[in-house]
């Protein structure tokens, strides 16, 4: 990390009374983004909720009837409650799994740290829908779990207690949430300085007390961000719950969505979406309230992150270490079991996705090569993610610099507003973007999806880069300009090298969020589906196991690339401390 040495010696200067040289950077694009991509869609959504619909056509008369109907409906109230409780349960369970895992990886793994982290991230690159589908195969009556339990003699006959239950819904949503909580928990834990832990031990605290009174208070804000992200993804996803939960997996998103489809009643759907958003906001406020910390870690405190702990060589220590390693493996089994199922079915000689297996075949891979629909959807997904990350990069870095170096009025509020799309459930965001795109005439297809994805990828990028910029000493930029460098040179040779790892981290996270996004895309793609939307359509009509083949290939290629990267990084000096650079965002 090029910036590390320099910044540690200098206390971060406050951003506001910043270097005046960049003051003239125009803030107009910031306000344009805010108005066009955040405020306008939400105002349109809000306005629509007060209209009514007749035969699928909007009637422009103000009315509160939609809200009265939504709030008066037992179904809407029950489903909102069920959706929120289920999402909370999933995010909580995911935290229970991900936090200890992140702690262990952060403190106890040396050169395998990066591998351990990337292994948690890789499943996110395989379509969530396909992974949810794999859970169906695992949990079904003729599924893997039942076969296993019956063979072990623990069950006399296959049980129907696993699939199409609330248990299945929570299991699948927890599964989905773990990587997100893990990433933010890990990032937070990496920032906890070892010196504080040593101090705690030196004062006689047990490891548990240290965890409770030192590590947790310093990392809980980071965990809360992951928790909220997981919660929001779970609230917004109404497809996974129905796939594994059957009728009991019906979530409020399904009912909201039906108003935009069959009923053609956008106003009522918008009102339901607004009610849902209000309920979600209350939960987010509560989480934020309880996770607020006293004071923040400064880089000068944080030091160089956590070195791995020295292993305990006693017998007891070895047993404990072995036990911990076995426990460490369990979350990975959980994360990779569905991927294994997808892999197995990609070689299964049957079009039907159910046990028992047919023979071995390679034909799904052969057909994949000729399946232009699937390949095109894949290319489109990469294109969308690529453009989105590009847009997010330019806008996110630009806006972050504006906030860091310009005196922007109500900067905190504006940052909050820009980040709002991250905090809006997918179903609501999708709907508001549809209304907005329709309004300004942006065509369905790639342009709409890019706009939709940019709304939530850009703030992620911006906040990550901004948090890095705020910790930089502004005098480097000042010095560069004083020495005669122009803006471009200063950015290229001084500023960018110092924020590069934050940009890479933000870009990777944004890419991951974009490639597997299904709900927002579902509303925006029109007839040019991205891969997740294509998969969703296929699951209903015309499924081909080539879908398993493409995701097995994506999973294996990702794994291969990661292993290769780690191999080369371990050979070079960069990998010596084993910390993935892009994750060490401070």
């Amino acid at each position, binding site marked *: 990390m090029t910036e590390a040495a320099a910044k540690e010696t200098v206390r971060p200067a406050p951003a506001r009374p910043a270097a005046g040289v960049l003051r003239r950077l125009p803030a107009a694009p910031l306000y344009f983004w805010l108005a066009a991509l955040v405020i306008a869609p939400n105002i349109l959504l809000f306005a629509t909720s007060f209209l009514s619909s007749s*035969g699928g056509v909007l009637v422009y008369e103000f009315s509160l009837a939609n809200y009265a109907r939504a709030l008066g409906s037992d*179904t809407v109230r029950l489903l909102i409650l069920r959706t929120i409780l289920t999402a909370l349960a999933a995010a909580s369970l995911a935290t229970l799994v991900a936090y200890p895992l992140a702690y262990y990886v952060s403190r106890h793994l040396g050169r395998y740290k990066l591998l351990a982290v990337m292994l948690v991230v890789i499943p996110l690159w395989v379509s969530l829908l396909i992974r949810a589908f794999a859970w169906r195969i695992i949990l079904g009556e003729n599924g893997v779990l039942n076969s296993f339990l019956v063979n072990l003699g623990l069950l006399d006959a296959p049980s129907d207690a696993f699939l199409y239950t609330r248990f299945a819904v929570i299991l699948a949503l927890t599964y989905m949430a773990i990587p997100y909580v893990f990433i933010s928990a890990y990032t937070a834990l990496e920032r906890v300085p070892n010196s504080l832990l040593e101090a705690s031990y030196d004062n006689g605290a047990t490891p548990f007390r240290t965890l409770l009174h030192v590590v947790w208070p310093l990392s809980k804000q980071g965990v809360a961000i992951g928790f909220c992200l997981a919660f929001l993804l779970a609230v917004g996803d109404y497809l996974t719950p*129905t796939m594994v939960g059957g009728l009991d997996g*019906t979530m409020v998103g*399904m009912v909201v969505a*039906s*108003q935009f489809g*069959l009923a053609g009643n956008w106003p009522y759907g918008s009102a339901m979406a607004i009610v849902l958003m209000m309920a979600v906001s209350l939960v987010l406020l509560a989480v934020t309230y309880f996770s607020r910390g006293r004071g923040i870690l400064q880089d000068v405190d944080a030091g160089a992150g956590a070195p791995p702990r020295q292993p305990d060589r006693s017998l007891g220590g070895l047993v404990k270490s072995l036990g911990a390693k076995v426990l460490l493996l369990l979350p990975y089994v959980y994360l990779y079991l569905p991927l294994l199922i997808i892999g197995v079915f990609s070689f299964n000689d049957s079009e*039907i996705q159910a046990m028992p297996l047919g023979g071995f075949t390679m034909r799904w891979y052969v057909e994949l090569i000729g399946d232009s629909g699937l390949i095109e959807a894949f290319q489109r997904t990469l294109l969308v993610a690529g453009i989105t990350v590009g847009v997010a990069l330019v806008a996110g870095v630009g806006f972050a610099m504006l906030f860091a170096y310009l005196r922007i009025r109500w900067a905190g509020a504006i940052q909050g507003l820009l980040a709002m799309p991250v905090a809006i459930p997918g179903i609501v965001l999708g709907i508001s973007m549809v209304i907005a795109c329709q309004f300004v005439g942006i065509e369905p297809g790639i342009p709409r999806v890019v706009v939709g994805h940019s709304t939530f990828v850009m703030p992620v990028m911006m906040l990550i880069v901004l948090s890095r910029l705020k910790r930089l000493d502004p005098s480097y930029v000042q010095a560069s300009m004083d020495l005669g460098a122009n803006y471009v040179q200063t950015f290229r040779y001084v500023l960018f090298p110092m924020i590069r790892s934050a940009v890479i981290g933000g870009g990777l996270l944004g890419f991951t969020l974009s490639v597997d996004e299904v709900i927002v895309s579902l509303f925006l793609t029109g007839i040019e589906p991205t891969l997740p939307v294509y998969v969703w359509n296929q699951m*209903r009509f015309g499924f081909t196991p080539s879908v398993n083949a493409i995701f097995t290939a994506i999973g294996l290629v990702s794994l291969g690339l990661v292993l290769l990267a780690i191999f080369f990084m371990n050979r070079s000096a960069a990998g010596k401390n084993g910390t993935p650079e892009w994750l060490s965002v401070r």
Partner: protein
Amino acid sequence: MTIQKTDPAWARGAISRRRALQLGAGSALALSFGALSGGKSMAASEVTLFTWETYHEPDWVQAYQQASGVKVNVVNTGSVDEMYAQTRSGSVKADVLYFDTGSFPRYIDAGLIAPFDAAQVPNRKNVSKTMGWEEKCTVGGKLWGIPYNWGTQPLMYDKRATDGEPLTWAALWDKKYKGKVNMFDDAYITIPMIALYVGAADPFNMSDKEFEEVRKALKALRPQVRTIARGFDDATNIYASGEAVIGYCQNIAIVNDLQAKGLPFAYSFPDEGTPTWIDCSVVTEQGNRPEVYSFIDANLTPEWQVRMTEFSLNNGVLSAEVAEGAGLSGEVIKKTNIADQAQDGFWDKMVVFQPPEDIDRRLEVWNDFKAGTL
């Protein structure tokens, strides 16, 4: 823009996809937002179709173009709603639309289609007489289209689980099948079946009392159903994995697929009636031209229909004799309802989709069913 690709793989993938896409009424919610692309300006020697996958495959269209010199543009849709929304918004300006008879009134009310001139379609003689299509395509005393394809939505079952052939929808409420009944997630298609079960006089125009009966029936059905299918492939997997043994069949392709896997599934036409769809060729105002009618006529030749039936395993509109005469194999006929329709009283037992009295109300009942708040 959905001008179909000429890649054969695209066409191959479309075979099964089409079978139920067509019935996707409301469930294909995302697509219903309408791809507002594809607006086409019409030239006199062009015909633009707004159709469904497997209805007009690229090679068939190309052959027609070469023979007639008329350029044919194909725009595919994903759902009934999408087609209506795009036609209404003017984002797709087609000459011929392909939709079910139940959708006639809303297109007529919106002034989107023109009365159909059957005299310009000599091949109408090939449409199976037993279908009684003229009556089904007449609204307000005027003819609005001609059938192009049709299909049934019967009761399907696993022979190992039932005692013989169930001939009433009441079988779905039989406690014996608790947790093993499958439905599919579409109020537009499902509520008429429930209405038939409760004995509604007109399953598409129910009284308040009948709505209440439907509500009660759905409440009683809830414990029977653990999951609902999102499409026919979803349904096939649910039945194949043993999660369901009986249910309302979205498309008989599900039964064909299961049989092909060696599973003893079958379907029956219950005494109360079987919901059935008939998709018609319908011309818009701008499509009211001779070359458009010529294309529709060409679509009703036995050769065209046989090719479509073989490709999609949909029924087409020919009678069994005409189809066989044109070379459709007995094996294919067995996989469709083409032979069934020749039986006496077949069409009397079919209940062809009509526009529902209040789709909003139907959807609300269905959502209550899904949420378990009935």
